[in-house]
């Protein structure tokens, strides 16, 4: 089934369509959440909350607002960030500033059992640190251009193209 039809059925409260969407995006959303909270149980809880919320607010989504995945991504990032901000976090324990998605991928045992899992490990290890920083902030943390530029001490005008170049490198390696 095509995505627009799935989304439409989901908005009409069709649980089968909802499950199909979960199967398409759940794992990726889980990855984004885990990268922020770094705790298996907490990540599962947030993932569950996010999808229950999405179901209850399905009418809020429309294609004019953006991609369906982007909608999920935005809700998930916010839920995960709210969670870590609400908790008192011991910085030395969590050390969230230094960790990023690339560390998870490079040590992800789970990938060894999957097709192409090892490939993505290699590809990510080949990405320049500057690329990892930009991708981490823009996609995994939901920073806008201005916030990214301030955080990385980079001119705002270069963020957009830097991000594009980094994504292109990944696409070349992933053959997308």
């Amino acid at each position, binding site marked *: 089934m095509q995505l627009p039809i799935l989304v439409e059925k989901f908005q009409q409260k069709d649980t089968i369509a909802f499950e199909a969407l979960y199967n398409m995006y759940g794992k*990726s959303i889980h*990855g984004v959440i885990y990268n922020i909270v770094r705790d298996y149980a907490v990540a599962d809880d947030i*993932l569950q909350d996010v999808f229950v919320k999405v*179901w209850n607010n399905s009418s809020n989504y429309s294609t004019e607002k953006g*991609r369906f995945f982007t909608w999920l991504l935005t809700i998930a990032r916010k839920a995960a960030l709210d969670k870590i901000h609400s908790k008192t976090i011991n910085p030395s324990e969590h050390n969230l500033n230094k960790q990023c998605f690339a560390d998870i991928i490079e040590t992800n045992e789970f990938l060894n059992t999957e097709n192409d899992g090892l490939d993505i490990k290699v590809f990510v290890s080949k990405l320049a640190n500057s690329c990892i920083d930009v991708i981490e902030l823009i996609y995994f943390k939901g920073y806008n251009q201005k916030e990214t530029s301030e955080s990385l001490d980079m001119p705002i005008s270069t963020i*957009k193209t830097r991000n594009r170049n980094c994504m292109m490198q990944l696409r070349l390696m992933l053959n997308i």
Partner: protein
Amino acid sequence: MDIKEYIDSGILELYVAGSLSDKENQEVHELMLKHSDIEREVLKIETTLLQLAAASSPSESKHVFKTVKEHIMLDNENSKTNSYVNKKSKINWFNYSGWIASILFAVGLLWLGYENRQLTSEKNQLSNEINQLKTKISTNESDKKFLELEIEKVNTNLKESKELISILRDRHIIAVPLAGQAISLNAYAKIYWDKSTKTIYLDAQGLPEPPEGKVYQLWSLTLEPLTSKSLGTLNDFDSVTNKIFTLKNANASQAFGITLEPEGGSITPTLDQLYTLGIV
């Protein structure tokens, strides 16, 4: 509007990230509907991000959907029971309870039968859809494999061509043009001889296709006294697309000649079938 420039600007990457304003999102959406190139690019960016984010998930998360489903079902139940609770009645239910129970039972049975039929037809429809999807996936995959093979071929060709260029540009290489002879004045060939590796690259583009059962043979010649030594035959002439043949030559050649010989080659050149000749 320059679509390539628009795509290259990196705005679509930000669109997928969700970091554009509502107005910009709307604009991108409208352009996606108008230009399939833009839509395709967005899908590719999304696929890349999906893979990257999925790889950042270090544990199985499939089971989570079960609890999600339980939650949303429960929410439905709650809203239903709440609406029943509000309706109070003054009827003495006890007197009617037996009748009501049997009526409910009968209605329940009918309903179950109906539900069952509904479910079976939904199930059939779904399995049809799944089968259709499976066929689509397998065609897509075979298309992808085919494209990958094509790309591989192109890459190998490119690599070979680059190697060839670097060989021909080597300054120590000796170039020997071979001019057409009486039997075929228009024929020509060129030899690039790398003495250090004792290798000859023969560009035979200017030779006519050899007739059935015949093959070109390259000869190394020394003058005074005239002696010839075979360097080999140009096998599968028509299937070598770039018409470059690599042969070994450890001789102190003074000239090279190409003759047309019976398949398998000859021990000595058939001189009246000499196509091209060139002096070092």
